[in-house]
Every structure is written in C-alpha cells, then in structure tokens.
C-alpha cells in the first residue's frame, strides 16, 4: 500500500504534466489508433511491441540504476496465477474487441476517435464497476489461487538484480533487431 500513501503526497501538477508528455508520445507513436493496435494483435504491424519493448529496456536500466543508488524504491504489484493469467486473458479479449487499452483510450479520445469516447470509455467504467461488485466473492477464491506475492524475477532466481537486468535488456534488444531484420 506504499503507492497509495505516496499518491496522496504526489503533487497533482506533476501527474498532469507527465500525462501530457505520455499522451503526446502515445499519439506520435500511433498507439492512439485502433488500426495500429489491431495491426499489432493481427501481427501485421509491430509498432506497439516496438514502443513497449524499447520503453521497458530504457525504463528498466534507469530504474535499476537509480534503485542501486537508493534514489527510488520499486513499486511491485502482488499477484497470483488466478489473478494474472485469467485476468490477463479477459483483458486481452477486451483489448482486441475494443482496440484500445486504458492508457491509449485516453489518447484516442484526445486524438478525436469517437468510438473510444462514446462506446469504449463507457464500457471500461461499467466493466470496472462489475468487478467491484463481484470482488468480495472473488478475492478469497479464484484471485488467491497460486499466490506468489510481490515477487520479482531477480528474487525468483535468487540472484543479483543486474544478472537479470542485463540479460533481459540484451534479449529484448535482440528481439527488436530480429523484428527489423524480418521486415516487420
């Protein structure tokens, strides 16, 4: 719950500024467009994966560097197989049917896509509310199945952070080079 406590202190102006930069970048990347997102899910246009993987490599190197210097603390979400596998698959179905995700739908609205504003936004709000209503029934059952807590890959393998960070960075960069070589 550390993130919740910090959230109260985090000045809202920074949130707005960071959001403006995020939205600007998402639009410049084409990620605010249904056609680009569906192109990714149909495996004909790898723009979304290229954006995400280069963000992960860059972000990971910086965050673990700053963590080693004591400048930042990680904010890891606890999880379980019941939560992340089933929830992830349901999310994926919605992702393809809607053609936007919660971040990019905000960008799509700014970009002027009205199916995002009228249909999609209402849907996400309804779907979230349905989950909140069902939550008391789910939390002790399916959501707790296969619980592994706030595990990270370095702790899973019981190794120094950099023994995971460096190979993951190399692997993701090779994957991106592979995509380019394959002409995708």
């Amino acid at each position: 719950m550390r993130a919740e406590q910090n959230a109260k202190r985090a000045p809202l102006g920074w949130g707005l500024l960071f959001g403006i930069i995020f939205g600007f970048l998402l639009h410049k990347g084409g990620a605010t467009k249904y056609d680009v997102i569906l192109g990714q899910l149909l495996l004909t246009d790898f723009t979304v994966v290229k954006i995400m993987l280069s963000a992960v490599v860059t972000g990971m190197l910086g965050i673990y560097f700053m963590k080693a210097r004591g400048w930042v603390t990680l904010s890891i979400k606890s999880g379980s197989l019941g939560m992340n596998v089933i929830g992830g698959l349901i999310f994926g179905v919605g992702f393809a049917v809607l053609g936007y995700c919660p971040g990019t739908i905000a960008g799509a609205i700014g970009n002027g896509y009205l199916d995002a504003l009228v249909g999609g936004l209402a849907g996400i709000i309804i779907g979230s509310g349905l989950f909140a209503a069902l939550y008391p029934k789910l939390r002790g059952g399916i959501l707790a199945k296969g619980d592994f807590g706030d595990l990270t890959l370095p702790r899973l393998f019981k190794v120094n952070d950099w023994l995971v960070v460096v190979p993951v960075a190399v692997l993701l960069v090779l994957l991106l080079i592979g995509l380019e070589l394959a002409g995708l």
Partner: protein
Amino acid sequence: MEFLTEVRWSPYIVGVGIGVLSWLTFLISRQPLACSTTFARTSGLLERLVRGARVENMRYYQEIKLTWGWQGMLVLGIVCGALLSALLSGDFQGQWVPDRWAATFGDNVLPRLLVALLGGIAMGFGARWANGCTSGHGISGSLQLAVSSWISALCFFVGGILTAKFIFNVIGGG
C-alpha cells in the same frame, strides 16, 4: 521545432521517451506510469452519485480509495497531450468508425459502438481482475521485473492476438 508537427515518430524514439518518462515519475512523484485504476475510481465515484456514500464501504473501493489523485491527473494529461500532438500535426480525427473496422465490417456507427462498449466492459473487468493494464503491468511492472506483470503482459497479448484473429479472420472471413 518541425518534429513537433510530424504525425508519426519512430516507435523506438517514442519507446525510449516513455522509458525516460518512467524514470521521472519514479524519481519525482514516486509513482509508476499506470492508468486503469482511474477508470475503477471513476466508476465508483459515478456510482456514489447515484447510490450515495455507502458505495465507499464496498470492499474494493476501500482498497483503491475513491479519490482521483495523481493517476487521475495522469490520465487527464494523456487526453490533453494526445490532443495537443494531434492538433499540432493536423491529425485530429473526429471519426466514429476506424478504417480497419470499416474495411471488414462496414462503416455503420451503431455496430462499432456496441462492439466497443462490449470490448470496454471485458477490458475494464479484466484490468481489475489482473490488477493492472498495458501501462501498469505491460510497461511499468515489466520494467521493474515484477513476475505478476510479465505473466499479465504475456496473457494480454495471447488473449488479444487470438481474439483479433478470430474477429478478423473467422468472423470477418479475411
């Protein structure tokens, strides 16, 4: 400053930019880039308008707290930032039916809105179930090497790819 008026940038420049942005959100705001909880809070706040203060006592809203906060401002900022970029590059759309959808299923507005609504319901529900979305798990959680996020991100794409193939190749017959 001509680059600001270009419609598209290289996905690698955009990705590296988002990565650097995540350094700043951690360093300055002690927060990861994440969006989907804001939609759940919005849902709870709307429900509170209808059903009153007892909504706040619901177990889920006790956990996520019904205040819009930093993440709400981030999401609002995304709308503004995308609007700014779209206007600067002459790419503001005002479009009801995306081209790719129209090419396969026609340009009737109502079917697309209905499907977007249904997709939104599944996605909103799934984002709560998995406790995160393509930004919270897919980018912020993955870059911190969280196991929950790598599993979720993988499942987002497995579910998404299978569903997209089914919609366009089976139903759409392409």
